[in-house]
């Protein structure tokens, strides 16, 4: 039933005291990925002023790694421009946590995807045109969601 998974200190810190947990009131953009069947679900809401993410909050249904990656992602993003935030990769998330157990790497994917969708949501709501690359990545995220 159980499987020994070792988390490092950094992951445990974020799990025990998650940063920016909750939901923003009147957010400028919201991104949601995953579903309870596959075991992880994340919702990220952002506030944007002059192209800068001024506030961010997350809600997560999932394991220790899912909660820690959500938390660390929010800390990476606060104060960044949308363009900078968009470029945050799963690797950057995992690195910020000083590594994740290999079996849990997909969790870091989920966090960066939720953030990406929140940014795309903001752009759509504010009439900012999406590049072809952006449309492609959004489509890919949604497809993966269904398959998982």
């Amino acid at each position, binding site marked *: *039933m159980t*499987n020994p998974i070792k988390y490092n200190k950094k992951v445990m810190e974020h*799990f025990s005291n998650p940063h920016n947990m909750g939901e923003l009131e009147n957010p400028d953009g919201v991104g949601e990925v995953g579903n*309870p069947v596959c*075991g992880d679900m994340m919702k990220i809401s952002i506030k944007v002023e002059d192209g800068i993410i001024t506030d961010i909050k997350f*809600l997560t249904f999932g394991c*220790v790694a899912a*909660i820690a990656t959500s938390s660390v992602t929010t800390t990476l993003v606060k104060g960044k421009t949308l363009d900078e935030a968009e470029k945050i990769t799963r690797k950057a998330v995992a690195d910020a946590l000083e590594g994740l157990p290999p*079996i849990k790497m997909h969790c870091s994917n989920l966090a960066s995807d939720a953030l990406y969708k929140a940014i795309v949501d903001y752009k759509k709501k504010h009439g900012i045109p999406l590049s072809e690359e952006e449309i492609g990545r959004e489509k890919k995220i949604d497809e993966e969601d269904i398959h998982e």
Partner: protein
Amino acid sequence: MAEDKFIYFDNIATTMTDPEVIEAMLPYLNEKFGNPSSFYEFGSQINDDIKIAREQVAALLNADPDEIYFTSGSTESNNWAIKGFALANQSKGKHLIISSVEHYSVSHSAEFLKQLGFEISQIPVDEFGIIKIEEFKKLLRADTILVSVNFANGEVGSLQPINEITDILKERKIVFHTDAVQSVGYIPIDVKKLNIDMLGFSGHRFYGPKGTGALYVKKGIRILPLINGGVQESGKRAGTENVPGIIGLGKAAELAQKQMPSYIPKLTELRNKLTDGILEKIERVKLNGHPEKRLPNFVNISYEFLEGESILMMLIMKGIMAASGSACQSKALKVSPVLTAMGVPADLAQGSILFSLGKHNTMEEVEYTIKELPTIIERLRMMSPLYHKFKKNQ
């Protein structure tokens, strides 16, 4: 709760070896190191001690001593019973029936036989994880040679209707095997009264040593050995005996028989207290398994809107060890197949936590857990998008 102490509620993983068991084993790790197969008395006299251990195990199950074969544990016992029986009796038929809530040592053994041309049917279970008897009857065929159903469901502890199964099989002369790894030492088992033909179990689940177990095989039933070599275990299971382990298993069986009348009521009381406490104090929870017809030490509960691993981790931070059926807790990243077979929706199976109690647990530990758990659940729910959705829609 003192910081150096922890509460062990994962007795289905393994149990604390009883100090009396360790004491009984020690001479066989020290001065009594002889090989029972040796010609000289220093070795051969150990056969007398193994004989006593065999009698102790037999007594626990009401079997005859020569119906007990020592193994390395229930995984080996189950593999042996299923493969060994099927291979020895394939001229009579090549159809086997197992339940849909078996441990992998049973279901994967059956899968293995499929590759050798056997056919396997699975008995569906109800919402409690108990096999559907009527569906089971429909699966029986003229070429069915073996039926294997666990004594109790391994994840929720629901007791299977063993008597009803063996009554049906008796008329048809089909052999019955049961994986009793969760049950031996927690509920009295009488293989004669219940008409059980083969039964496998492990020592370490009831305060015996790891790497020990036995397979009971009723006299007259033929199984092929899986481990070939010397003539140990009447030529059925080769290899120099794990003497300290066998002695320890015998002691554990003796202790279980002696202590069960006192610790079963105690476990039942702790189980009920923990179950009722959680159901009372936390909203949106569901008890998995049959409310009454279950082992005295199983408390498997699902917490809506949550995933099990994060609950387990928060419990660990409070010094409580338990288990979960969530996908994140399995190597395959798949939710527990047992809970799935019971029709537990995936999101509820994700949030299942199993507390399995043992004879060393106390009421104080149960009360501490009832006190700490609601805070843990509340904290994680505040993080859960599913809970927020539920609250908004209320």
